[in-house]
Protein backbone atom coordinates (compact mmCIF):
# COMPACT_ATOMS: atom_id res chain seq x y z
CA UNK A 1 0.00 0.00 0.00
CA UNK A 2 1.44 3.35 -0.95
CA UNK A 3 1.77 6.21 1.49
CA UNK A 4 -1.04 8.11 -0.24
CA UNK A 5 -3.40 5.16 0.07
CA UNK A 6 -2.74 4.82 3.75
CA UNK A 7 -3.11 8.52 4.37
CA UNK A 8 -6.47 8.59 2.64
CA UNK A 9 -7.59 5.58 4.62
CA UNK A 10 -6.59 7.22 7.89
CA UNK A 11 -8.19 10.48 6.85
CA UNK A 12 -11.45 8.65 6.12
CA UNK A 13 -11.38 6.88 9.47
CA UNK A 14 -10.62 10.23 11.10
CA UNK A 15 -13.70 11.81 9.46
CA UNK A 16 -15.79 8.77 10.49
CA UNK A 17 -14.73 9.14 14.12
CA UNK A 18 -13.11 5.70 14.06
CA UNK A 19 -9.53 6.55 15.08
CA UNK A 20 -8.11 5.99 18.55
CA UNK A 21 -7.38 9.13 20.61
CA UNK A 22 -3.66 8.77 19.88
CA UNK A 23 -4.26 8.47 16.14
CA UNK A 24 -6.60 11.47 16.22
CA UNK A 25 -3.88 13.58 17.81
CA UNK A 26 -1.31 12.49 15.24
CA UNK A 27 -3.75 13.18 12.39
CA UNK A 28 -4.61 16.65 13.69
CA UNK A 29 -0.95 17.49 13.97
CA UNK A 30 -0.44 16.43 10.36
CA UNK A 31 -3.48 18.39 9.20
CA UNK A 32 -2.11 21.52 10.86
CA UNK A 33 1.23 21.08 9.12
CA UNK A 34 0.19 19.95 5.61
CA UNK A 35 -2.08 22.18 3.48
CA UNK A 36 -2.41 19.47 0.83
CA UNK A 37 -3.78 17.10 3.43
CA UNK A 38 -6.29 19.72 4.56
CA UNK A 39 -7.51 20.05 0.97
CA UNK A 40 -7.97 16.31 0.75
CA UNK A 41 -9.83 16.24 4.07
CA UNK A 42 -12.11 18.97 2.75
CA UNK A 43 -12.80 17.02 -0.46
CA UNK A 44 -13.52 13.87 1.51
CA UNK A 45 -16.03 15.82 3.60
CA UNK A 46 -17.63 17.13 0.44
CA UNK A 47 -17.78 13.64 -1.04
CA UNK A 48 -19.51 12.34 2.10
CA UNK A 49 -22.11 15.08 1.90
CA UNK A 50 -22.80 14.42 -1.76
CA UNK A 51 -22.95 10.67 -1.15
CA UNK A 52 -25.43 10.99 1.70
CA UNK A 53 -27.67 13.09 -0.50
CA UNK A 54 -27.39 10.81 -3.52
CA UNK A 55 -27.84 7.57 -1.57
CA UNK A 56 -30.97 8.85 0.19
CA UNK A 57 -32.54 10.01 -3.07
CA UNK A 58 -33.84 6.57 -3.99
CA UNK A 59 -37.63 6.85 -3.72
CA UNK A 60 -39.31 4.13 -1.70
CA UNK A 61 -42.49 2.84 -3.40
CA UNK A 62 -45.59 3.72 -1.41
CA UNK A 63 -46.94 0.23 -1.94
CA UNK A 64 -43.98 -1.49 -0.28
CA UNK A 65 -45.38 -1.36 3.24
CA UNK A 66 -48.75 -2.68 2.18
CA UNK A 67 -47.19 -5.52 0.18
CA UNK A 68 -44.98 -6.57 3.07
CA UNK A 69 -47.83 -6.49 5.57
CA UNK A 70 -50.09 -8.41 3.22
CA UNK A 71 -47.49 -11.08 2.73
CA UNK A 72 -46.77 -11.42 6.45
CA UNK A 73 -50.48 -11.61 7.25
CA UNK A 74 -50.85 -14.66 5.10
CA UNK A 75 -47.55 -16.15 6.23
CA UNK A 76 -48.71 -16.62 9.80
CA UNK A 77 -47.79 -20.11 10.86
CA UNK A 78 -50.72 -22.17 12.10
CA UNK A 79 -50.60 -22.47 15.88
CA UNK A 80 -51.97 -26.01 15.71
CA UNK A 81 -52.15 -28.61 13.00
CA UNK A 82 -55.50 -28.64 11.31
CA UNK A 83 -56.21 -25.10 12.22
CA UNK A 84 -54.76 -23.50 9.13
CA UNK A 85 -57.51 -25.04 7.04
CA UNK A 86 -60.23 -23.41 9.03
CA UNK A 87 -58.51 -20.07 8.93
CA UNK A 88 -58.21 -20.24 5.19
CA UNK A 89 -61.84 -21.18 4.97
CA UNK A 90 -62.60 -18.20 7.16
CA UNK A 91 -60.55 -15.90 5.01
CA UNK A 92 -62.31 -17.21 1.93
CA UNK A 93 -65.71 -16.63 3.53
CA UNK A 94 -64.61 -13.13 4.38
CA UNK A 95 -63.57 -12.43 0.82
CA UNK A 96 -66.76 -13.89 -0.60
CA UNK A 97 -68.73 -11.82 1.89
CA UNK A 98 -66.94 -8.70 0.80
CA UNK A 99 -67.34 -9.38 -2.88
CA UNK A 100 -71.01 -10.24 -2.35
CA UNK A 101 -71.60 -7.08 -0.38
CA UNK A 102 -70.00 -4.98 -3.03
CA UNK A 103 -71.90 -6.71 -5.82
CA UNK A 104 -75.31 -6.50 -4.21
CA UNK A 105 -75.27 -3.18 -2.50
CA UNK A 106 -72.59 -1.12 -4.09
CA UNK A 107 -72.15 0.43 -0.64
CA UNK A 108 -75.79 0.26 0.40
CA UNK A 109 -75.29 -2.80 2.59
CA UNK A 110 -72.52 -1.19 4.58
CA UNK A 111 -72.73 2.51 5.08
CA UNK A 112 -68.99 2.82 4.86
CA UNK A 113 -67.26 5.45 2.91
CA UNK A 114 -64.93 3.66 0.49
CA UNK A 115 -61.92 3.97 2.78
CA UNK A 116 -63.76 2.39 5.72
CA UNK A 117 -64.32 -1.03 4.20
CA UNK A 118 -60.66 -2.11 4.35
CA UNK A 119 -60.55 -0.92 7.99
CA UNK A 120 -63.54 -3.05 8.82
CA UNK A 121 -61.97 -6.07 7.16
CA UNK A 122 -58.62 -5.51 8.88
CA UNK A 123 -60.26 -5.11 12.28
CA UNK A 124 -62.29 -8.28 11.84
CA UNK A 125 -59.25 -10.18 10.56
CA UNK A 126 -57.22 -9.04 13.59
CA UNK A 127 -59.95 -10.28 15.91
CA UNK A 128 -60.23 -13.65 14.17
CA UNK A 129 -56.49 -14.16 14.18
CA UNK A 130 -56.44 -13.26 17.86
CA UNK A 131 -59.00 -15.99 18.50
CA UNK A 132 -56.91 -18.42 16.48
CA UNK A 133 -53.75 -17.84 18.48
CA UNK A 134 -53.20 -19.62 21.80
CA UNK A 135 -54.32 -16.37 23.42
CA UNK A 136 -55.90 -13.30 21.88
CA UNK A 137 -53.48 -10.79 23.38
CA UNK A 138 -49.77 -9.93 23.42
CA UNK A 139 -49.83 -8.60 26.95
CA UNK A 140 -51.99 -10.22 29.59
CA UNK A 141 -53.27 -7.88 32.27
CA UNK A 142 -56.55 -7.00 33.91
CA UNK A 143 -55.17 -3.61 34.83
CA UNK A 144 -55.83 -0.75 32.42
CA UNK A 145 -52.88 1.10 33.93
CA UNK A 146 -50.61 -1.68 32.74
CA UNK A 147 -52.17 -2.18 29.31
CA UNK A 148 -52.32 1.50 28.31
CA UNK A 149 -48.60 2.28 28.79
CA UNK A 150 -47.65 -1.02 27.15
CA UNK A 151 -48.80 0.46 23.84
CA UNK A 152 -46.38 3.37 24.14
CA UNK A 153 -43.72 3.02 21.49
CA UNK A 154 -45.60 0.14 19.83
CA UNK A 155 -48.44 2.20 18.41
CA UNK A 156 -49.03 5.92 18.09
CA UNK A 157 -52.24 5.62 20.13
CA UNK A 158 -52.29 4.46 23.77
CA UNK A 159 -56.01 4.19 24.53
CA UNK A 160 -57.65 4.30 27.96
CA UNK A 161 -58.72 0.83 29.05
CA UNK A 162 -61.74 1.29 31.32
CA UNK A 163 -62.31 -1.27 34.07
CA UNK A 164 -65.63 -2.95 33.30
CA UNK A 165 -65.10 -6.07 35.43
CA UNK A 166 -67.94 -5.22 37.80
CA UNK A 167 -70.31 -5.02 34.86
CA UNK A 168 -69.23 -8.49 33.72
CA UNK A 169 -66.66 -7.46 31.07
CA UNK A 170 -63.20 -8.01 32.60
CA UNK A 171 -60.18 -6.62 30.74
CA UNK A 172 -57.78 -9.45 29.88
CA UNK A 173 -55.04 -7.71 27.89
CA UNK A 174 -54.00 -5.91 24.74
CA UNK A 175 -52.40 -6.61 21.39
CA UNK A 176 -51.16 -4.77 18.32
CA UNK A 177 -53.14 -5.14 15.09
CA UNK A 178 -52.37 -3.74 11.65
CA UNK A 179 -55.01 -1.51 10.09
CA UNK A 180 -54.30 0.42 6.88
CA UNK A 181 -50.64 -0.48 7.16
CA UNK A 182 -50.28 1.01 10.62
CA UNK A 183 -49.84 -0.75 13.97
CA UNK A 184 -52.85 0.13 16.14
CA UNK A 185 -53.82 -0.87 19.69
CA UNK A 186 -56.50 -3.45 20.43
CA UNK A 187 -57.90 -3.89 23.92
CA UNK A 188 -59.17 -7.37 24.74
CA UNK A 189 -62.11 -7.95 27.09
CA UNK A 190 -64.05 -11.06 28.00
CA UNK A 191 -67.67 -11.86 28.63
CA UNK A 192 -67.87 -15.39 29.99
CA UNK A 193 -66.26 -17.44 27.20
CA UNK A 194 -66.52 -14.70 24.59
CA UNK A 195 -63.64 -12.48 23.54
CA UNK A 196 -64.28 -8.83 22.70
CA UNK A 197 -61.63 -6.96 20.70
CA UNK A 198 -61.69 -3.16 20.79
CA UNK A 199 -59.43 -1.78 18.06
CA UNK A 200 -58.69 1.93 18.22
CA UNK A 201 -57.76 3.91 15.10
CA UNK A 202 -57.41 7.62 14.40
CA UNK A 203 -60.81 9.03 13.41
CA UNK A 204 -61.05 10.07 9.77
CA UNK A 205 -63.87 12.53 9.36
CA UNK A 206 -67.12 11.78 11.16
CA UNK A 207 -67.56 8.03 11.06
CA UNK A 208 -71.14 7.23 12.08
CA UNK A 209 -71.99 5.03 15.03
CA UNK A 210 -73.17 1.76 13.60
CA UNK A 211 -73.48 -1.97 14.06
CA UNK A 212 -72.91 -4.76 11.64
CA UNK A 213 -73.12 -8.53 11.66
CA UNK A 214 -70.66 -10.43 9.58
CA UNK A 215 -69.72 -14.09 9.64
CA UNK A 216 -71.12 -14.60 13.11
CA UNK A 217 -69.37 -11.58 14.55
CA UNK A 218 -70.91 -8.33 15.63
CA UNK A 219 -68.98 -5.16 14.84
CA UNK A 220 -69.84 -1.99 16.74
CA UNK A 221 -68.26 1.24 15.67
CA UNK A 222 -68.30 4.64 17.29
CA UNK A 223 -66.16 7.78 17.32
CA UNK A 224 -65.14 9.79 20.34
CA UNK A 225 -62.94 12.84 19.97
CA UNK A 226 -60.23 12.03 17.46
CA UNK A 227 -60.47 8.26 17.86
CA UNK A 228 -62.67 5.67 16.21
CA UNK A 229 -63.38 2.49 18.17
CA UNK A 230 -64.21 -0.85 16.55
CA UNK A 231 -65.55 -3.49 18.93
CA UNK A 232 -65.74 -7.04 17.52
CA UNK A 233 -67.14 -10.14 19.19
CA UNK A 234 -69.39 -13.12 18.71
CA UNK A 235 -71.44 -11.95 21.69
CA UNK A 236 -75.19 -11.58 21.27
CA UNK A 237 -76.34 -8.20 20.06
CA UNK A 238 -77.87 -7.12 23.38
CA UNK A 239 -74.69 -7.73 25.40
CA UNK A 240 -72.58 -6.22 22.67
CA UNK A 241 -74.58 -2.99 22.70
CA UNK A 242 -74.41 -2.89 26.48
CA UNK A 243 -70.64 -3.32 26.33
CA UNK A 244 -70.30 -0.54 23.76
CA UNK A 245 -72.51 1.79 25.81
CA UNK A 246 -70.56 1.08 28.99
CA UNK A 247 -67.22 1.54 27.26
CA UNK A 248 -68.36 4.82 25.69
CA UNK A 249 -69.68 6.17 28.97
CA UNK A 250 -66.41 5.40 30.72
CA UNK A 251 -64.09 6.89 28.10
CA UNK A 252 -66.26 9.87 27.23
CA UNK A 253 -65.00 13.31 28.03
CA UNK A 254 -67.13 16.36 28.63
CA UNK A 255 -67.75 18.26 25.42
Amino acid at each position, binding site marked *: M*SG*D*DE*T*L*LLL*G*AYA*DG*ELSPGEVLAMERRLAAE*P*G*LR*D*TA*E*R*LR*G*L*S*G*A*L*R*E*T*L*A*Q*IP*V*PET*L*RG*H*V*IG*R*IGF*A*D*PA*PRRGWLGSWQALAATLLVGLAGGAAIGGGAVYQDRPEDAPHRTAVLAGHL*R*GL*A*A*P*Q*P*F*DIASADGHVVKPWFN*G*RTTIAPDAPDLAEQGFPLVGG*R*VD*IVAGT*PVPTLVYRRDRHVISVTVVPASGSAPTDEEHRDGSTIERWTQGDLTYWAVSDLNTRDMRRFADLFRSRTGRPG
Partner: protein
Amino acid sequence: MTGLTSAATPTAPSTLARARFSQLVLPRLDEGYRLAHWLTGNPTDAEDVMQEACLRAYRGIEGFAEGNARAWFLTIVRNTGYSWLQRHRPRAVIFAEDLAAEARSALETGGVLTPAPETPEAALIARDDAGQLARAIDALPVAFRETLVLREYHGLSYREIAEVTGVPIGTVMSRLGRARQHLLALLVKDR
Protein backbone atom coordinates in the same frame (compact mmCIF):
# COMPACT_ATOMS: atom_id res chain seq x y z
CA MET B 1 -29.48 -17.49 6.14
CA THR B 2 -31.07 -16.34 9.32
CA GLY B 3 -34.54 -17.45 10.10
CA LEU B 4 -35.23 -20.10 7.52
CA THR B 5 -34.76 -22.95 9.96
CA SER B 6 -37.04 -21.56 12.62
CA ALA B 7 -39.91 -21.27 10.18
CA ALA B 8 -40.91 -24.89 10.60
CA THR B 9 -41.16 -24.72 14.37
CA PRO B 10 -43.00 -21.63 15.55
CA THR B 11 -42.75 -21.47 19.30
CA ALA B 12 -44.69 -18.35 20.17
CA PRO B 13 -48.12 -17.08 19.24
CA SER B 14 -48.23 -15.50 15.83
CA THR B 15 -49.80 -12.38 17.33
CA LEU B 16 -46.64 -11.84 19.34
CA ALA B 17 -44.49 -12.33 16.27
CA ARG B 18 -46.60 -9.83 14.36
CA ALA B 19 -46.32 -7.28 17.16
CA ARG B 20 -42.55 -7.65 17.24
CA PHE B 21 -42.43 -7.43 13.47
CA SER B 22 -44.40 -4.16 13.59
CA GLN B 23 -42.04 -2.86 16.19
CA LEU B 24 -38.69 -4.05 14.83
CA VAL B 25 -39.05 -4.30 11.06
CA LEU B 26 -41.81 -1.99 9.80
CA PRO B 27 -40.09 1.22 10.95
CA ARG B 28 -36.98 0.14 9.01
CA LEU B 29 -38.55 -0.66 5.63
CA ASP B 30 -37.28 2.54 3.97
CA GLU B 31 -33.65 2.09 4.88
CA GLY B 32 -33.85 -1.62 4.11
CA TYR B 33 -35.31 -0.85 0.69
CA ARG B 34 -32.56 1.66 -0.11
CA LEU B 35 -29.89 -0.91 0.76
CA ALA B 36 -31.64 -3.47 -1.45
CA HIS B 37 -31.86 -0.90 -4.22
CA TRP B 38 -28.16 -0.10 -4.12
CA LEU B 39 -27.34 -3.82 -4.07
CA THR B 40 -29.56 -4.86 -6.98
CA GLY B 41 -29.53 -1.60 -8.93
CA ASN B 42 -33.23 -1.27 -9.72
CA PRO B 43 -36.61 -0.83 -8.01
CA THR B 44 -38.27 -4.06 -9.13
CA ASP B 45 -35.52 -6.31 -7.85
CA ALA B 46 -35.15 -4.21 -4.70
CA GLU B 47 -38.83 -4.81 -3.93
CA ASP B 48 -38.44 -8.56 -4.52
CA VAL B 49 -35.44 -8.66 -2.21
CA MET B 50 -37.37 -6.72 0.44
CA GLN B 51 -40.38 -9.02 0.25
CA GLU B 52 -38.18 -12.03 0.79
CA ALA B 53 -36.06 -10.33 3.46
CA CYS B 54 -39.17 -9.32 5.43
CA LEU B 55 -40.50 -12.85 5.28
CA ARG B 56 -37.16 -14.15 6.57
CA ALA B 57 -37.14 -11.50 9.30
CA TYR B 58 -40.66 -12.46 10.31
CA ARG B 59 -39.83 -16.14 10.48
CA GLY B 60 -36.66 -15.47 12.41
CA ILE B 61 -38.13 -12.88 14.73
CA GLU B 62 -38.36 -15.28 17.68
CA GLY B 63 -34.64 -15.86 17.33
CA PHE B 64 -33.80 -12.19 17.66
CA ALA B 65 -33.32 -11.70 21.39
CA GLU B 66 -32.07 -8.30 22.40
CA GLY B 67 -29.51 -6.12 20.72
CA ASN B 68 -29.15 -4.05 17.61
CA ALA B 69 -32.39 -4.59 15.70
CA ARG B 70 -31.21 -2.32 12.93
CA ALA B 71 -28.02 -4.27 12.25
CA TRP B 72 -30.01 -7.49 12.55
CA PHE B 73 -32.55 -6.43 9.91
CA LEU B 74 -29.96 -4.88 7.59
CA THR B 75 -27.98 -8.13 7.77
CA ILE B 76 -31.03 -10.06 6.58
CA VAL B 77 -31.63 -7.59 3.74
CA ARG B 78 -27.95 -7.71 2.78
CA ASN B 79 -27.82 -11.52 2.79
CA THR B 80 -31.04 -11.76 0.83
CA GLY B 81 -29.62 -9.26 -1.66
CA TYR B 82 -26.47 -11.35 -2.01
CA SER B 83 -28.47 -14.52 -2.62
CA TRP B 84 -30.37 -12.63 -5.29
CA LEU B 85 -27.12 -11.42 -6.89
CA GLN B 86 -25.72 -14.94 -6.84
CA ARG B 87 -28.78 -16.21 -8.68
CA HIS B 88 -29.07 -13.38 -11.20
CA ARG B 89 -25.67 -11.72 -11.46
CA PRO B 90 -23.09 -14.30 -10.40
CA ARG B 91 -20.32 -12.23 -11.99
CA ALA B 92 -21.06 -9.33 -9.62
CA VAL B 93 -20.35 -11.56 -6.64
CA ILE B 94 -17.30 -13.25 -8.14
CA PHE B 95 -15.65 -9.93 -8.97
CA ALA B 96 -16.85 -8.23 -5.81
CA GLU B 97 -13.29 -7.30 -4.79
CA ASP B 98 -12.09 -6.19 -8.20
CA LEU B 99 -11.39 -2.53 -7.68
CA ALA B 100 -7.65 -2.83 -8.15
CA ALA B 101 -7.49 -1.88 -11.82
CA GLU B 102 -9.54 1.30 -11.55
CA ALA B 103 -7.79 2.40 -8.40
CA ARG B 104 -4.41 1.93 -10.00
CA SER B 105 -5.28 3.91 -13.07
CA ALA B 106 -6.64 6.66 -10.86
CA LEU B 107 -3.29 6.91 -9.12
CA GLU B 108 -1.45 6.99 -12.44
CA THR B 109 -3.54 9.86 -13.73
CA GLY B 110 -2.57 12.09 -10.87
CA GLY B 111 -3.84 10.57 -7.67
CA VAL B 112 -6.23 12.11 -5.26
CA LEU B 113 -3.63 13.62 -2.97
CA THR B 114 -2.37 15.97 -5.66
CA PRO B 115 -3.33 19.44 -4.42
CA ALA B 116 -6.55 20.51 -6.10
CA PRO B 117 -6.09 23.53 -8.35
CA GLU B 118 -9.38 25.16 -7.39
CA THR B 119 -11.09 25.71 -4.07
CA PRO B 120 -12.06 22.45 -2.41
CA GLU B 121 -15.74 23.29 -2.84
CA ALA B 122 -15.33 23.58 -6.59
CA ALA B 123 -13.97 20.06 -6.70
CA LEU B 124 -17.06 18.82 -4.96
CA ILE B 125 -19.91 17.39 -6.82
CA ALA B 126 -22.54 19.98 -7.48
CA ARG B 127 -26.17 19.02 -7.11
CA ASP B 128 -26.52 18.81 -10.89
CA ASP B 129 -23.91 16.08 -10.90
CA ALA B 130 -25.84 13.82 -8.57
CA GLY B 131 -26.69 11.58 -11.51
CA GLN B 132 -23.04 11.19 -12.31
CA LEU B 133 -22.24 10.30 -8.70
CA ALA B 134 -25.08 7.77 -8.62
CA ARG B 135 -23.70 6.10 -11.76
CA ALA B 136 -20.24 6.03 -10.24
CA ILE B 137 -21.61 4.33 -7.10
CA ASP B 138 -23.51 1.83 -9.25
CA ALA B 139 -20.32 0.99 -11.07
CA LEU B 140 -18.46 0.09 -7.88
CA PRO B 141 -17.98 -3.62 -7.16
CA VAL B 142 -20.69 -4.79 -4.77
CA ALA B 143 -18.43 -5.26 -1.73
CA PHE B 144 -17.33 -1.62 -1.93
CA ARG B 145 -20.80 -0.37 -2.72
CA GLU B 146 -22.46 -1.98 0.27
CA THR B 147 -19.74 -0.77 2.63
CA LEU B 148 -20.10 2.76 1.31
CA VAL B 149 -23.91 2.70 1.59
CA LEU B 150 -23.88 1.27 5.12
CA ARG B 151 -21.44 3.96 6.21
CA GLU B 152 -22.59 7.07 4.33
CA TYR B 153 -26.33 6.48 4.18
CA HIS B 154 -27.09 4.20 7.14
CA GLY B 155 -24.38 5.77 9.31
CA LEU B 156 -23.27 2.45 10.78
CA SER B 157 -19.98 2.25 12.67
CA TYR B 158 -17.11 0.19 11.25
CA ARG B 159 -17.86 -2.50 13.84
CA GLU B 160 -21.53 -2.68 12.81
CA ILE B 161 -20.62 -2.79 9.12
CA ALA B 162 -18.20 -5.61 9.91
CA GLU B 163 -21.05 -7.53 11.57
CA VAL B 164 -23.54 -6.92 8.76
CA THR B 165 -21.14 -7.81 5.95
CA GLY B 166 -19.27 -10.56 7.80
CA VAL B 167 -15.72 -9.25 7.35
CA PRO B 168 -13.06 -7.95 9.78
CA ILE B 169 -13.08 -4.26 10.75
CA GLY B 170 -9.78 -3.73 8.92
CA THR B 171 -11.42 -4.87 5.70
CA VAL B 172 -14.30 -2.43 6.24
CA MET B 173 -11.80 0.38 6.69
CA SER B 174 -9.81 -0.47 3.59
CA ARG B 175 -12.92 -0.99 1.42
CA LEU B 176 -14.25 2.40 2.48
CA GLY B 177 -10.90 4.05 1.86
CA ARG B 178 -10.58 2.53 -1.59
CA ALA B 179 -14.16 3.27 -2.59
CA ARG B 180 -13.77 6.91 -1.60
CA GLN B 181 -10.41 7.18 -3.30
CA HIS B 182 -11.92 5.72 -6.45
CA LEU B 183 -14.89 8.11 -6.45
CA LEU B 184 -12.77 11.16 -5.76
CA ALA B 185 -10.35 10.23 -8.54
CA LEU B 186 -13.16 9.57 -10.96
CA LEU B 187 -14.89 12.84 -10.25
CA VAL B 188 -11.68 14.83 -10.48
CA LYS B 189 -10.86 13.15 -13.77
CA ASP B 190 -14.28 13.80 -15.30
CA ARG B 191 -14.44 17.41 -14.29
